[in-house]
């Protein structure tokens, strides 16, 4: 999933976005943040009890470039899980913001 897909879905904290844009190695930081997001999302999906849904979501999460695609698909299968994913991504940003300040 790309940074732009997270940003266009308004899921990136504006403060963190500014810090990333101002960073001299902005592209690398974007990639790193997306990697951290993807790993967090995969961990959250890993906790999902339905094996079939879990498999298809892991496959989608590793294949798609679009966060919105993954979110919509997750919402279709399990609304609660889609909310958990958003919360996990936001929580991760909170940790990054607090530690990097």
């Amino acid at each position: 999933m790309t940074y732009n897909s997270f940003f266009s879905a308004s899921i990136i904290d504006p403060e963190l976005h500014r810090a990333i844009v101002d960073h001299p190695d902005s592209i690398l930081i974007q990639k790193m943040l997306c990697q951290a997001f993807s790993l967090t999302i995969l961990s959250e999906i890993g906790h999902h009890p339905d094996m079939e849904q879990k498999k298809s979501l892991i496959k989608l999460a590793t294949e798609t470039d679009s966060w919105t695609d993954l979110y919509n698909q997750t919402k279709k299968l399990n609304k609660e899980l889609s909310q958990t994913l958003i919360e996990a991504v936001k929580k991760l940003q909170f940790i990054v913001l607090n530690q990097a300040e």
Partner: protein
Amino acid sequence: MPAQSFNHQQLKDVLIDVIAKQQHRLKTDFPQTWQYLKQHRSELTQNKYVQPSAETSVLQSVEQSLKPKQAQVSIEVTKEEHDQILGKLSALTNVPAGKIDLPDQLYFEQQLGDMLGMTISAQLDSYSLPDTIAHSLSLPHFKTHPTDKLSQHSLQEAGLSPTRPSFGWLTDKSSHLETFGIAIPLHKLDEWSSRRQEYLEWFKHRKVLVINPSRQLAAVGAIINSAPAHVQRFQVGLSPELVRATQAWHPETKGKLALFLVDEAAGNVPLGPASLKLEIKEDK
């Protein structure tokens, strides 16, 4: 709050730390997802952002010159970790031939892969070798073409096989594979009878990392034959050069080796010995 309040290097360091923690969490809590990720999105399993910025490099070199004792400790810790990995590796000598437990497998894939600078895995594209721990059989040289002669090979005391390898004669382009050739008993794989052709196509000339756990030696070889036929005693066959490179028949080893598939998705991995030794650059 203005963005200027962020320390650029700190932001990067925090992300490195977060990625490492998430990777560890995924690896330990969901090993199957981690395995899937390694096969399909291996870049997510890497954390190679540790190169310090120019600013940090200068800072670190100043710190190092000011605190030589502290610098020494950091090298010792690294060496300690290295020794720990090799210690755990040596324990594999006592494990019976077959597959190793998943946590151990993931541990060695990660640690040895990092140590050797290549991606190794017990399972690749959903294919795996019949055994991860195997007793090795020292083979004579593989015959590369019908008129191949022993005089055309080094280590002539090993002899020359009279038969054609399972994957056929080697061409000019593939004849170099003979030197570090490996024979794997592919008939031991699950569903061999129904998936024979598929297995042969996938395993043909596939690179395998051979590790001697007790001597801590490693070498990369290529599968060019399906053998040995009887797997009760030996589960892998090695060319004479591979036996030498890995010291497979050292008294401490007695032929017991660890095998991992080499993932070449990120680039070509050369055949031959690979170093497991810790390289510490000493300042003069």
